[in-house]
Every structure is written in C-alpha cells, then in structure tokens.
C-alpha cells in the first residue's frame, strides 16, 4: 500500500482539489500511519501560525522604541531621560538628525573611570604599605649592640671613686675577709 507522501502536506495545507482530497481522506481512514503524520503536520502548522500571530505585536513595540530614539539611534538612558525627551515625550533631536552615535562614549568613560579607580587604589595601597613598612628603627648598617651596663658601671665607679650605680649582676660571691690586724685609729 502506498501512503500519501507529499500529498499529505498538501492536504494539511488545503491545497488538494475535491477528487484528490476525497481519495486522501479515504486513505487516511484506512491508514493509521498517515493519520498520525497528518496530525503532527497540523500541530506543527498551528504552532507556526501562533508564532506568526505574536510577531506583529513585538514588531510594533520595536518600531515604537526605535521611533522614540530618533534617527541617531538609542541614547544612553541618563541622557535620554534628562535631555533627549521633551515634555510631550517626543525626542528633541528628532527633527535635527545631528546627534552623534553615543554608544562608544559611555564605554570610554567607563574605561577611563575604571582605570582611574584602579590607579588611585594602587597608589593608596602602595603608599599605605610603604608608610607602614617604613616605620620602626633605621636599618642602619653595622652590628647590633646591647650595652653591657655591668661592665660600664664598674668602669664608671673606678672613674668616679664611687660605687657602680647599676643593677648588680651575677658575680663571684666569695668575699675578701676582714683583716685580722684591723685597728681603729
């Protein structure tokens, strides 16, 4: 048994005449496979039709938006809000046709701003780090010396003929004993 083939899509599209359409319907009545294919084609066709019916509304919205921006193309949002729209919503520049293309301008500004912020952050961070690292004592060359106060104190005592005015350090505890021949004058 031969199936409908290409005539099936023509049947779905309503392109067959009376005799051909009757024969196609008779075949569909006895052929389950062609019936299923016909059902799929109809469903697909309905979906496509549905798409084509929504498209005009979106196209209308797009055209309205384009009309709002004028012939120079869309403006940056801030500029459009503040300067590009007049009181009645009509773009001021619609009749002039002299606005330059504005898209590259915010990109450059953003790039400049980003570069500036980065540079400032780098300088501030580096300065803070340098100021912090520059604190403390001078890393002068030479050995690190801890004054030997005990040694110095004894020398000071010998110089003055007095007593070492330092904190006593550990030393030999043995004392010279008092002389046995000590006499008071």
């Amino acid at each position: 048994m031969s199936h409908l083939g290409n005539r099936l899509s023509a049947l779905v599209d309503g392109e067959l005449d009376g005799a051909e359409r009757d024969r196609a319907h008779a075949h569909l009545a006895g052929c389950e496979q062609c019936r299923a294919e016909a059902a799929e084609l109809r469903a697909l066709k309905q979906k496509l039709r549905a798409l084509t019916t929504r498209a005009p509304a979106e196209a209308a919205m797009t055209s309205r938006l384009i009309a709002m921006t004028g012939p120079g193309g869309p403006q940056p949002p801030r500029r459009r809000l503040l300067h590009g729209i007049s009181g009645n919503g009509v773009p001021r520049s619609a009749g002039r046709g002299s606005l330059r293309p504005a898209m590259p301008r915010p990109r450059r500004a953003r790039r400049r701003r980003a570069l500036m912020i980065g540079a400032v952050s780098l300088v501030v961070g580096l300065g803070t780090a340098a100021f912090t690292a520059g604190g403390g004592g001078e890393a002068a060359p030479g050995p690190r010396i801890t004054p030997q106060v005990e040694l110095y104190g004894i020398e000071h005592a010998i110089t003055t003929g007095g007593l070492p005015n330092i904190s006593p350090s550990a030393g030999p505890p043995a004392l010279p004993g008092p002389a046995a021949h000590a006499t008071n004058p």
Partner: protein
Amino acid sequence: MSAFSSPVSRRRDGRGALLLAAVLAVALPGFPVAACSAPGGQAARSAQQAQGRGQQEATTQGRRQSSQRAVRLLTEAAQAAVLTSYQGEEIVSRWGTGTQPTVLVSEIWHVSGGQTVTQTLQADASSSGQPYRSADNDAQTPEGVLGVTAPLVNLLKQNYVLAYGGAGSVYNRKAQVVEALRGDGSLAARFWLDNATKLPLEREVFDRAAHPIGEDEFINVAVFGRASVSAPVGGVAVPPGPWTNPLPPVQLLALRSQGWLVRPALPDDLSLFTGAQATTSSGMVLDLGYSDGLSVISLFEQHGNLPARLAGWQQTTVDGKIIYVTEPGQRSMTWSSKGMVYTLITDAPTQTVAAVVGTLPHDAPPGFLGRMSRGLARLASWVNPFR
C-alpha cells in the same frame, strides 16, 4: 631768657641761702658746729674707707687662706684614700627624677697604694641579683672614696670656690668640713674629712636650687697601718678587668682620627679628664670620663646600632631626644646614632644630663618623605627575587 638764670636772680638766691642758714642756726643749735667741722668729717670718712679696705683685704686674705686650707685638706684626703689601708661601708644615696633616693651600700677594702675591692651589699628596690665586686689594679689611678680622687680635686679647684667650713663630726669621728661654692655663692657640695686620717667620711651635693641630689657616707671605718699590709686585704687577688689603663685626654682626643667622637668638654663645665678602652665580644668600647669635680659623666661609645628591642630598657624622652633608660632615676641611658651606640652613666644633676644628651648626636626623625622612601625600599627588597 628766664629770670632765674640772670645774675640778679643768683644774688637774690645767695641772700636766701644765708637767711636759711640763720634760721637753721636758731632752730638747730648744733648745725653751725657740724657745718664748721666739715674737714674733720672728710678725715673720718677717709678713716672709715681705710678701715673698710683693711677689712676687705682681711676678708680676702681670710678667704684665700680658707680656700688654701680647703684645697690642702681635699688633696690630703685624695692622697689618704690611696696611701692608707682601710675598710668600711660606703652608703651612696642619689636623688634622680623621683622623690625617693636610690641607695647603694657597699663594703670597701683598700690596700695602701694598690687594690680597692668593692662589694655591693644592698641595692635599691629596682636592682636585683647577686653581689659582685669591682677592682682597680692600677696603682697609678687608684679608686678613691666618695669621689675624692686627685683628678677630681683638681677639677673641683678649677670650677668651684673651695672654703674651709670649720670642724664637724660624722658618727662620732671628728672631722674637718670643706665647702664647694659656685660662682654665685650657692653651696654646691660639702665634705667631711676625717681629722686623724683625712679620709673622706661624708659628702653632700646640692643642685642650684639647694636641693640635695647626692649624699655619700663612709661609715664603720677601720684603718690599718701602712707598713703592716703588703698584700691585698684578705689575701684575695681580683682579676683585672677588660679595661686598659686610664688614657690621658691628649691620647683620647687623638682617637678622633679613628672615627670616635671625643669632645674635650661637655656642657656645664664638664671636662674630659680620663678614659679607657676595652675589647669585648661585640667589639671595642671607648669610655670617656667628663667631670666638673663633683659630677661625673661616663660616656661609652661602641660602633654599631641598638637592636630593635632592648630588654630591661625603657624608652623615654630627654631634651626632646628619644633615648632608653634602665631605671626611673635615669642614671643609665643609651641611644644610637649614625652607626655609634652611646651609653651614659652619670650622677650629674638632671639639668646637666639633659644638656649633655642634647649636645650629643641623635638621628633626626625620618619625616613623611623619608619614611615613605624607606618603606618603598623595604617593599622593593621584599619582592626582589634575586635578593
């Protein structure tokens, strides 16, 4: 021309004076006598002036004799501290920045012409640890008692007016009193010298405001015969320290060519009078002794820098300079500048110490640009992979 300047007016003035004299003669009967005896009054004044000059000369001569006696007594005391063998306890009290003095008590043994052994028995509350002893084995520069040594007596003569203060006593020992006066007449120090041995028994030191800043006493003194002692008392030989024999100022000043900072004098009449060098594990140390005869400042110098942290030292500011001190009385202080570590040990008045600290080298604060520059250099060194 006014009437008062004319000759007529002058004659009229002369008549007025005669009239005034007559009135005074009536009112004051003694007036003519006193007026007529004017030449006699001049003679009396001349006599009084002569008498005043005589008294002044006598006073000057008396001061000169008093000063000579005081110098003689102090010189004998310095010699006695060397030539006499003695033993006793020395109590040293120092008033620093606080109201409570720092007190040190030491036992001292001295052999005639030789060794002095000192052992600290009691220290102030901030001190701790075992006692130690010091010794001066150099008979040429013996350690004295209470700061009475020959070099210091010489400086005392140069910077103060010495005067004999009469007789006194210290702990039942009869003594002669010697006073050291400043140029303005204020009392700077007073010494009590033992009558029998001339050994110093007590010394008081005052600042310009007459506040005591030091009091030293030598008590429980026992004196030994010179001939009977030929060895160190107690037979103990104290090993010599690392310091060289004292160097004269000329030799010390010559060390400037080797990179040492040696100044011939410091503020408040402090003169370089002695010094020494020592070889330590951390390098050569130079000691410079400055004094005006009463106060002594020992300035120690060593090539290098202070470490980042100094255990046992506290940072403070003296005369606007940041230094480190070991105790509240600020008798020991240290800092480093341009590759040299300076350490001061002194018994001088606080004002003198501040002036000395201020005149010695200090590193200036780096400032903002200096600190930034140093910080950048450090950062660069940290990230340098080839370092």
